[in-house]
């Protein structure tokens, strides 16, 4: 290349500063996998607030932001910790009436992103018929089929202003490499990556551009999309980064417990977010021995 493309590589704090108070944000990942946790912790440190989170299946990523009082509105299908039960801060906030909710069934929440990726404003569905969701969610409207098959629920496209995804590898120009045998959390991230150019990718590792040229079929988010790429090893911890490391079950179990009370949750934030100056300091707090154990044997970065 005689003219070098833009370098998208940013620091974690530079990337997090792109998201302003009041933004409408989607955090990638699903269940306890692939959430951009290092980015979430940096947003917490920067004080970013008044967020609308548009999600599908969330866990501690969104739960932490809720517990710290940074989320005004949540569009979602699930906030939970799978084997560790209900997301504790989400539960506390909803029970005390502090969170505006707009909830959908899971495939509908997924499809809202596919709808945005297709450039369409809404889509029809019948899968929530018979439930109380349309009664409590004014965003579920009615529409009739102009071809005569009857009435449907109309649901709007996700339309996030910002999408933040954690992925395995990228080059400094913002080409993002995925592993070939993807699971649903990764495929949902790819769909979400096509909904906006305000796209921030955190990765386990920045690789040389030549690597992308060797593996072009794994370049599933090409460099015209991301605004910024950030290198954060173990950036999904305590969630998994599929193919690279497992979720930290001990940590998630601890989180589920301390999250139940605001005071112990605040202490958790002090220990793992506010009391550490950056992601490296966070990893030191977790410890090398633990991180080594979480590495996926036979997988990982080559």
């Amino acid at each position, binding site marked *: 290349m005689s003219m070098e493309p833009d370098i998208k590589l940013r620091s974690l704090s530079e990337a997090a500063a792109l998201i302003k108070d009041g933004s409408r944000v989607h955090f990638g990942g*699903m*269940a*306890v*996998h692939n959430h951009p946790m290092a980015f979430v912790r940096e947003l917490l440190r920067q004080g970013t607030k008044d967020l609308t989170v548009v999600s599908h*299946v969330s866990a501690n990523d969104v739960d932490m932001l809720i517990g710290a009082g940074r989320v005004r509105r949540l569009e*979602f*299908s*699930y*906030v*939970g*910790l*799978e*084997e*560790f*039960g*209900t*997301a504790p801060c*989400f*539960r506390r906030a*909803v*029970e*005390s*009436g502090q969170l505006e909710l707009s*909830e*959908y*069934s*899971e*495939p*509908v929440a*997924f*499809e809202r992103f*596919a709808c945005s990726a297709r450039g369409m404003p809404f889509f029809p*569905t*019948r*899968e*929530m*018929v*018979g*439930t*109380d*969701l349309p009664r*409590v969610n004014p965003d579920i409207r009615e529409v009739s089929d102009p071809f005569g098959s*009857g009435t449907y629920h109309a649901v709007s496209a996700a339309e996030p202003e910002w999408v933040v995804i954690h992925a395995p590898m990228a080059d400094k120009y913002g080409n993002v490499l995925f592993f070939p*045998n*993807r*699971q*649903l*959390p990764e*495929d*949902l991230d790819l*769909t979400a990556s096509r909904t906006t150019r305000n796209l921030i990718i955190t990765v386990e590792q920045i690789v040389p551009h030549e690597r992308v040229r060797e593996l072009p079929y794994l370049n599933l988010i090409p460099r015209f999309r991301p605004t910024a790429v950030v290198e954060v090893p173990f950036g999904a911890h305590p969630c*998994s980064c*599929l*193919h690279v*490391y*497992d*979720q930290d*079950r001990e940590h998630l179990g601890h989180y589920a417990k301390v999250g139940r009370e605001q005071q112990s949750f605040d202490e958790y934030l002090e220990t793992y977010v506010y009391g550490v100056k950056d992601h490296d300091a966070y990893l030191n707090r977790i410890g090398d021995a633990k991180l080594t154990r979480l590495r*996926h044997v036979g*997988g990982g970065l080559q």
Partner: protein
Amino acid sequence: MTAPATTYEVMAATIARELRDRELWFLGMSTGPETILLLTRLPIVAMELAQRTHAPNSWMLVAGWIMNPVVGKAPNRMESEFGNALGEWPCEGYNNSLTMSYIAARHEIDVGFGSAAQVDKYGNCNTVAIGPYERPKVRLVGPINQPGHFSLFGREIVIMPHEKRNFVDRVDFISGAGYLDGPGGRESVGLQRGGPCMILTDKAVFRFDEQTRLAMLASIHPGITLDDVVANTGFTHDYIPPEVEVTAGPSAEEVELIRTVVDPDGVMLPR
């Protein structure tokens, strides 16, 4: 001599008998260790048992994406619906991406499995909130895929821990539409098919009366008394028929199959 069937084996056999050949079965995510055992691990054993006894052409979508896994080679106890270990579970195929929801949207799934914090006398289920929606006493995880299980699938097997507070006259929030307000309820909102076919618990089986659509006690598991069931059931309608059967547990051959072939290392079901 094979030791008598455990409660979980009785439940697995009950599910297996409900499953037919040439069907598509869908199993999704659950939350909390007790629910993962009842709603994920138990149906997985039941599905392979059915495939090995009478349903060789059926097809299972485990966690929605792992197709026809070798249950006995499960890498873990299904703590999560995804993960590195599950990606190495020997199976017949993967179904990732959004195509998973499109299969359901096309009404191709015959049977799903569901659970809830509350189930009511018409089989409506609630995974959203206990108490008023805006200010709930207990906020639960959310609807997840339950709406589609009850609106798009052929039928739903509801599996519940048998506790009084779980069995109510009317759920506080409908996230899975059973027979709604009773006869004609589903039809009145345009649901032409589907709905719950049974409620299976660790004590008994309920089925829905074709006329009244009410949940009726169909059988009680071996070793459980009617008093025990009544003491732990919150329904107030008359759900006890004149004759209550004992749940037909697995045959000795089926028990042997579960213990030596389907789940030889006891990864899925406690022994």
